[in-house]
């Protein structure tokens, strides 16, 4: 099958901007370790941006700043040009640790429905959204089961269903596939791409896996050793839809992967 470009994906201005973002642990004035030095980044609406960096480089901290779970000690996060304080609306997070982000006392459907309770939706629409989201991630049959009755991969699908049922404009994913086996990871990656295409959402995806970042993203942002700075931004012009075997075997994939890897390991001017 011939690869096809997504001609219908128009990049219309930047939805999400990080402006000289900095974060220091502990009191802002002290000599506490600096986690993030200076990160500026624009994420256009509808794009899939991956952030890679060495472990401990503050990737997850960066994502928590964007999610509003942490307050930056310098700089700002903007959505549609307006600075964000606290947790922005229209944003959902998928955490790495699905085992602890799903609520064990709720069923899978209950987990997906919980964030919808305060959106003021009619009950019928809420149920419809839950059904649709679970169907989309292939968990239609597991709605009434509890998270701990599912495999790791299925639990992460449930967490993704919870995020898409919320219909966020921005989907943040914090190393979501780091704790599952390789085959499951490949399946989940393709599912993430399918979800992104179907919902035309904007994804900011943190990972330490270079292959994963290149395979998924339009653009890969490489962070330095801590304290984090942006070392490079690599545009990924691989055709879509991508394929686990074809795409990964292509020469351009191999070249991009090497490019990103070089910038992670030899950040100083490459």
């Amino acid at each position, binding site marked *: 099958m011939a690869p096809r470009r997504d001609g219908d994906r128009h990049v219309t201005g930047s939805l999400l901007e990080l402006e000289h973002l900095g974060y220091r642990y502990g009191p802002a004035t002290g000599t506490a370790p600096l986690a993030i030095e200076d990160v500026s980044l624009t994420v256009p609406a509808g794009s899939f941006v991956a952030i890679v960096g060495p472990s401990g480089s503050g990737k997850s901290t960066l994502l928590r700043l964007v999610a509003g779970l942490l307050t930056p000690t310098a700089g700002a996060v903007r959505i549609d040009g307006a600075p964000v304080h606290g947790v922005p609306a229209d944003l959902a997070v998928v955490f790495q640790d699905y085992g602890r*982000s799903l609520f064990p006392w709720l069923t899978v459907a209950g987990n997906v429905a919980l964030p919808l309770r305060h959106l003021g939706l009619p009950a019928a629409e809420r149920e419809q959204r839950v059904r649709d989201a679970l169907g989309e991630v292939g968990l239609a049959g597991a709605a009434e089961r509890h998270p701990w009755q599912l495999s790791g991969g299925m639990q992460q699908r449930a967490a993704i269903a919870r995020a898409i049922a919320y219909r966020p404009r921005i989907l943040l994913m914090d190393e979501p596939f780091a704790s599952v086996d390789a085959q499951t990871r490949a399946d989940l990656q393709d599912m993430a791409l399918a979800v992104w295409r179907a919902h035309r959402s904007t994804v900011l995806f943190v990972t330490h896996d270079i292959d994963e970042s290149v395979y998924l993203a339009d653009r890969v942002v490489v962070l330095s050793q801590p304290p984090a700075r942006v070392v490079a931004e690599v545009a990924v012009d691989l055709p879509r839809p991508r394929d686990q075997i074809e795409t990964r075997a292509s020469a351009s994939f191999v070249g991009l992967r090497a490019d990103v890897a070089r910038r992670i390991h030899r950040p100083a001017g490459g």
Partner: protein
Amino acid sequence: MTARGLGLRLSVLLGLIAAWQVAATLAASPALWPPFTTVAGRLWEAWITDPAAWVESIAPSLGRLLAGWAGAAVVGIAAGTLIGLNRTVRDYLDPAMAFLRAIPPPVLLPLFIVLLGIGDAMKAALIGFGAVWPILLNTADGVGSVEPLHRDTARAFRVPRWTVLWRIVLPSAAPRIFAGLRLAMGIAVILMVIAEMVATLDGVGFELVQAQRSFRMVDVWATILLLGLMGYGLNAALALVERRVLGWHRGATATAT
């Protein structure tokens, strides 16, 4: 439980009863050590099959016990939640609570009699005072140790505070809260018996003291067995509720190894 395990338990139980029977018969002083059959017979006719005993003694006792325990549950869970969620409140209340908790509840009997008379309110209050502490402390611990990622998840989806409390904080503290409720039940039974032995004109504890004062040894034994059965029944009922409410917890802890 396996059938073999059950068989072992039953045979041990029967063995104990047989030993009681034989020892009591050999001792041949039925005034002090009545045989099991005599005691069981008295338990059956004077308590279990006597409607008057249910209406005049068991019902009032259970009523006081459950009123005190339920009051302790409401106060303990509410106050425990407040203390568990708010470090400052906890700092203010900790020493005062440590002192109140350390008072052995029976010494409060004279005070409660002055304040509330010798009626049911006094007994329920005494039971509630003793039973509230394990519930309160367990709730505070459970509420204070909610998985941080659960909190983050709730915040990221902008779940309102009230929903977080009802749907996330309290369910995740529920195993600890139930542990507190179970401990409180044991204390409540003890305090019910004390309160009825010291100041009352009805109830199982009252009947027990009456039997002792008139040297009706068989009745003393039978009433003790009755109280044991009541304690067992209350525990079993609570365990049943707990299994229903905390089904997810047993499953979740069984899978997480």
